[in-house]
């Protein structure tokens, strides 16, 4: 690649004098890294706030089998996320998020294979692997749409939730969750679910858009004429970052 040769500096000159890439990475790649660093701060802010609010709430202390939804304590995630499409009424804790994690890891692999193909100037292979990556991204988004729908609609049996209506507290039966009311536990639980997975899902969505642009430019031969496929690498960095964030969301929201 062009940037590997750019690191050589003639004696007596500083790397910072211009004309070379100080960190051995091209301008675009370096800026992508720093953008991702700032994006990591944003996601961390969300996840850390989640940690703060969760540890401020009472934890559920009983056995997993005896667990019921209540606004008194924070729910245990394997009891909230236990549904799988087409298998209504069967408890399959965390299976669906496991499938989603697998899909995202696979699309990360196909992305890195596209980058590898780009290094070899193999346009056909870049096209093939970009299409697989886009497919993985769209599948993940479709899974998330289903998961959100299930979360919003709720379970078959409602939970009794105290709500403040017209100046007084009333107890009512609630199924599902929104930003205003939540059957699974404290209101904050639903709010964090929507904000954290929503913000991540939005990143996946924009990642799919970028991937499509890269596929389009590859298909029309833009990178072949340019002589290198560095754009695939840059967008690849973004796509891996989205996968990385999911690894953290998966641990802190679904497992812990």
């Amino acid at each position, binding site marked *: 690649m062009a940037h590997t040769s750019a690191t050589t500096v003639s004696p007596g000159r500083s790397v910072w004098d211009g004309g070379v890439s100080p960190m051995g990475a091209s301008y675009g790649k370096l800026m992508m890294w720093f953008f991702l660093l700032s994006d990591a701060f944003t996601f961390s802010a969300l996840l850390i706030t989640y940690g703060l609010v969760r540890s401020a709430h009472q934890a559920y202390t009983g056995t997993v089998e005896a667990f019921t939804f209540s606004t008194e304590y924070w729910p245990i995630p*394997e009891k909230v996320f236990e549904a799988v499409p087409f298998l209504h009424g069967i408890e399959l804790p965390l299976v669906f998020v496991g499938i989603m994690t*697998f899909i995202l890891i696979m699309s990360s692999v196909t992305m890195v294979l596209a980058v590898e193909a780009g290094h070899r100037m193999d346009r056909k292979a870049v096209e093939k692997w970009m299409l697989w990556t886009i497919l993985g991204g769209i599948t993940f988004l479709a899974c998330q749409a289903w998961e959100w729908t299930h979360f919003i609609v709720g379970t078959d049996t409602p939970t009794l939730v105290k709500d403040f209506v017209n100046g007084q507290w009333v107890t009512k039966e609630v199924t599902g969750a929104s930003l205003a009311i939540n059957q699974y536990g404290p209101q904050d639980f639903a709010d964090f679910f929507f904000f954290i997975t929503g913000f991540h899902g939005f990143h996946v969505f924009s990642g799919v858009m970028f991937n499509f642009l890269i596929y389009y430019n590859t298909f029309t031969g833009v990178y072949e004429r340019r002589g290198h496929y560095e754009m695939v690498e840059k967008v690849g960095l973004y796509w891996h970052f989205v996968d990385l964030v999911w690894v953290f969301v998966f641990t802190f929201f679904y497992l812990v």
Partner: protein
Amino acid sequence: MAHSEESQVTVLPPDKEKIKKLWTVAGILGAITAVEFVVAFTMGHGSLKTAIFVALTIVKAAYIVGEFMHLRYEVKVLLWSILIPMIFIVWMLVAFVYEGMKFSEINF
């Protein structure tokens, strides 16, 4: 259009060793996720379980950033300028979770 230039481009053969390595990393990531699932359903909730999850997550993150994002093979200055700012995140996490536990003692 682009097809007229195709003859000028030399396409190198696939780097079998590199591709094999990438699939190995993918396999490791999948295996760690599988281990996380086993831990999730065999261990009771507690700080040990949380510690195992956090440790496995950091291993996964290291593989993604190091191998897939290629950071392990970049110039060391770049590696550290990405990793050192992460100290702020770790500190913020520790401080805020500690604060949260204090909130629950106040019982507002």
